[in-house]
C-alpha cells in the first residue's frame, strides 16, 4: 500500500468536467511528475463537491485547502508553492462571499456554503474516487450489506427502514419501509428491485451527482433491498444523457462483481444478486414508475393506471421495489448506524436530510444537502449566498415542472414534505429554482407548461389536450391578447387536469399555473387589463423607445440587428416599432442611457 503525504482531489462531476477539470487533472499529474512529487502526492478524481458555481474545484488534503475556479495556469503555482514548498496559494482559494471578514478560509470545512449543510447522502461525494471500489470500502462501504446478510432477517431490514421513517426522495414522499414490506409480502417466484435514475426535472441534478460521486452506495443499497424483499435481480434505469454517471456506474458494477459483492453466494451466505443498467432515452414520463417499468420491459414508456402497484405487479408482471437514487443512497448508513441516528436529523414526519439543486438567480449555484426542516431563508441566503446583482428575491420554484412556487412570505417556512404540499408546491426531486424581480411569473408558468406539453406521452386526454390548451391560454396572456375570462378558464382547466390525468406527470403539470395564480394573480391581471408585464419580460407587452436627450451618436443604430433605428447624425433617433424585435441590444450602447423598455 503506497502512502501519500498529500491528496489533490479534482472534481470530476458533470459541472466541473464541462469547465475543464479533466485537463486540470492531467496537468496536475504532469506537473507533479516533473517535480518528482508523483510518489508523494496523489491526484484523485472525485464526484461533485456541490459548489458547481466555483468550478473547476480542487481540494488539497491534509490541509483541506479549497481552490476554486482553477485555471490551467494556476496548476503550476499550486504544485510549486503548495505541494512543493507547503505554502498555500491564498489568492487562488475560494472567496467566501458571505463572510464579512477579509480572511480567506484555507479549509473547506469553514466555508459558509458547507457549514450549514449536513452531508449524509453526499458524504462520499467529493471525498472518494468513485472509480475505485477500495476507496468506497475504506469509508465503510459494503459493511451494511455484510451486516444484513450475516446478522439480519429480511423482516429485520424492513423494520429498520420503517423505523427510520425514510420517505421516498423521488418526489412523492411515500414511506420506503412500507413499500419494501408490500414487496416482501407479495407472492412471487421472481421479484425485482429497480432504481429510478431517470432524473428529468429541468434544473435537478442530485441523482446524477450521487451516481457520479458514489455509485457503489446505490449498488449496495439495491442488494440490501433485494435481500429484504426476496429479489435476485436489479435494474438501474438511467437516462443516456448522463454519460459520466452511466460510465461510473458501469465501472462500479464490474468492480463489485470482481470482488464478489455482486453475483452468487455473496459473503458465503447463499444470497445471489445481480444488477443491470437500462438506458432511458430521456423522456420525462419515464420517471413515473409504471412508465419506467414499461420502458425496462422494452415497451414504449407510458404509464398505466394503479393499482396494481409495482410492489404487486411490476417488471414483467413480478413484484418490484422501485426507489429513487437518493432514497437508496442513505440505506447503507441507516443499516449501519441505525434508524435512531437517521431520525436525529430532520423533522418528526420527514426525518433525514434532503439534497437540493440550487439554480436560477442565486449566487452559489450548486448542490446542497440540509436537514429537513431547514428554512427557505437559510437555504437561499445563508447557503445559497442570496440573489446576485442586488436584485430582490421574488419566488422559488420547488419540485420543477411538477411543483409550485413559494414567495417572500414563505421564507421562514421549514422545508419538509408536508409543509411544501400544504403551500401548493411539492418537494419533487429537489430542484430549487430561484426567481428575482426581473422574472415574469406568467412567463415562468408558461415555461414549465411548455416543458410538460413536450413531455406528455399522450396516453390520456386530460394531459394531452388539457396541458396544450393551458399553454395556449398562457401564450395568449403573455402576448397581451388575454382577457379576464381567460384567467378563470385557465384556472378551472388546471383543476380538471389535476383531478383527471392518469399519472403523476399530468396530475402535477398544472401546479406551476395554480401556484402562480395563487400568489401572483396580480401579475396575470396586469397582463390582461393593463397590457403590461410588471417584470418587463414579455416581449409583446413591451416597447423599446428612445427618450428625449438622444445626442445622435448612432451607436444604437449600429448594433440593431434588424435596422429598426433611424435618425440623422447628431439628431434624435427613433425606433420603428413594427421592425423592433425587442432584443435590447441597443440599451447598453446608449451613452446617455435614454433607451428604455416600457
Amino acid at each position, binding site marked *: *500500500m*503506497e*502512502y*501519500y*503525504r*498529500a*491528496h489533490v*482531489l479534482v472534481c470530476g462531476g458533470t459541472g466541473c468536467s464541462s469547465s475543464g477539470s479533466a485537463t486540470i487533472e492531467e496537468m496536475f499529474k504532469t506537473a507533479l511528475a516533473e517535480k518528482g512529487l508523483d510518489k*508523494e502526492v496523489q491526484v484523485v478524481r472525485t464526484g461533485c463537491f456541490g459548489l458547481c458555481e466555483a468550478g473547476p474545484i480542487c481540494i488539497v*488534503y*491534509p*490541509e483541506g485547502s479549497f481552490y476554486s475556479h482553477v485555471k490551467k495556469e494556476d496548476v503550476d503555482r499550486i504544485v510549486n508553492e503548495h505541494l*512543493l*514548498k*507547503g*505554502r498555500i496559494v491564498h489568492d487562488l482559494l475560494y472567496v467566501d462571499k458571505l463572510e464579512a471578514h477579509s480572511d480567506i478560509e484555507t479549509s473547506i*470545512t469553514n466555508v459558509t456554503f458547507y457549514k450549514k449543510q449536513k452531508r449524509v447522502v453526499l458524504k462520499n461525494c467529493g*471525498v*472518494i474516487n468513485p472509480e475505485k471500489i*477500495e*476507496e468506497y*470500502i*475504506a*469509508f*465503510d*462501504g*459494503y*459493511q451494511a450489506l*455484510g*451486516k444484513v446478510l*450475516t446478522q439480519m432477517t429480511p423482516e429485520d431490514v424492513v423494520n429498520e427502514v420503517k423505523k427510520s421513517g425514510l420517505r421516498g426522495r423521488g418526489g412523492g414522499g411515500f414511506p420506503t419501509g412500507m413499500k419494501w414490506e408490500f414487496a416482501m409480502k407479495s407472492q412471487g417466484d421472481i421479484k425485482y428491485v429497480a432504481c429510478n435514475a431517470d432524473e428529468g426535472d429541468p434544473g435537478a441534478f442530485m441523482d446524477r451527482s450521487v451516481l457520479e460521486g458514489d455509485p457503489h452506495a446505490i449498488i449496495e443499497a439495491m442488494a440490501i433491498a433485494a435481500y429484504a424483499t426476496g429479489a435476485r435481480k436489479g435494474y438501474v434505469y438511467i437516462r443516456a444523457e448522463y454519460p459520466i454517471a452511466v460510465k461510473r456506474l458501469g465501472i462500479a458494477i464490474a468492480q463489485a462483481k470482481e*470482488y*464478489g*459483492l455482486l453475483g452468487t*453466494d*455473496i*459473503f*458465503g451466505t447463499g444470497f445471489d444478486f445481480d444488477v443491470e443498467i437500462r438506458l432511458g432515452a430521456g423522456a420525462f414520463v419515464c420517471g413515473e414508475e409504471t412508465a419506467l417499468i414499461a420502458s425496462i420491459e422494452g415497451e414504449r414508456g407510458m404509464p398505466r393506471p394503479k393499482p396494481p402497484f409495482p410492489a404487486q405487479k411490476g417488471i414483467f408482471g413480478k413484484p418490484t421495489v422501485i426507489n429513487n437514487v437518493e432514497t437508496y443512497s442513505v440505506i447503507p448508513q441507516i443499516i449501519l448506524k441505525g434508524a435512531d441516528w437517521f431520525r436525529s436529523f430532520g423533522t418528526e414526519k420527514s426525518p433525514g436530510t434532503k439534497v437540493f439543486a440550487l439554480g436560477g438567480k442565486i449566487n452559489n449555484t450548486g448542490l446542497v444537502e440540509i436537514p429537513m426542516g431547514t428554512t427557505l431563508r437559510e437555504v437561499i441566503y445563508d447557503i445559497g449566498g442570496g440573489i446576485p446583482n442586488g436584485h430582490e428575491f421574488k419566488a422559488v420554484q420547488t419540485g420543477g415542472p411538477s411543483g409550485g412556487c413559494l414567495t417572500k412570505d414563505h421564507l421562514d417556512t421549514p422545508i419538509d414534505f408536508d409543509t411544501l404540499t400544504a403551500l401548493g408546491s411539492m418537494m419533487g426531486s429537489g430542484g430549487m429554482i430561484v426567481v428575482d424581480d426581473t422574472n415574469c411569473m406568467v412567463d415562468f408558468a408558461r415555461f414549465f407548461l411548455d416543458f410538460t406539453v413536450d413531455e406528455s406521452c399522450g396516453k390520456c386526454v386530460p394531459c394531452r389536450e388539457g396541458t396544450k390548451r393551458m399553454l395556449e391560454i398562457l401564450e395568449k396572456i403573455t402576448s397581451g391578447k388575454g382577457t379576464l375570462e381567460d384567467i378563470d378558464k385557465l384556472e378551472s382547466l388546471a383543476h380538471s387536469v389535476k383531478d383527471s390525468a392518469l399519472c403523476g406527470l399530468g396530475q402535477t403539470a398544472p401546479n406551476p399555473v395554480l401556484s402562480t395564480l395563487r400568489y401572483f394573480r396580480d401579475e396575470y391581471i396586469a397582463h390582461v387589463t393593463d397590457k403590461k408585464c410588471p417584470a418587463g419580460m414579455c416581449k409583446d407587452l413591451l416597447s423599446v423607445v428612445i427618450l428625449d436627450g438622444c445626442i445622435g451618436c448612432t451607436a444604437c443604430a449600429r448594433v440593431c440587428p434588424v435596422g429598426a433605428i433611424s435618425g440623422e447624425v447628431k439628431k434624435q433617433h427613433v425606433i420603428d416599432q413594427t421592425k423592433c424585435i425587442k432584443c435590447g441590444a441597443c440599451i447598453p450602447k446608449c451613452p446617455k442611457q435614454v433607451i428604455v423598455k416600457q
Partner: protein
Amino acid sequence: MKSLEELTKLRDAAIQKVDLRKERKGTRIVVGMATCGIAAGARAVMAALIDEVQKRGLKDVEITQTGCIGVCRLEPLIEVYKEGEDKVTYVDLTDEKARRIVAEHIVNGSIVKEYTIGAYE
C-alpha cells in the same frame, strides 16, 4: 467476497489510502521545505519520514511541509506536533535521524533530545 471478515480486512488495508481526507486528530510532522530546506536535503528527510510511517502502518500521522522557519542554518528541520503536547523542533536532520525520530518519538513517545533545537544550540 466470502465473508464479512474478508471485507473488514480489505477496509482496514484501504483506510490508510484515504485516511488523510478524514477528519481526525493525531500527530503532525511538518518539514521545512523552503529553498534553504530543500538545498540542505529536506527532500531526503521527507522521503525517509514517509517511508517509515508507511512501513510501520502508522495511522493519524500527517506529514506536511512548510516554508522557511527562519533558522536556515539548522536545516533540514522538522517540527512535531503531538496532540496535547508541546511542539518539538528537530534540526540538522538526515535520513537516519528522521527514521529514529519516527521510531522513538512518534511510536514510543520519547523525545529524541539530542536532535532537538535546544540540544543543538
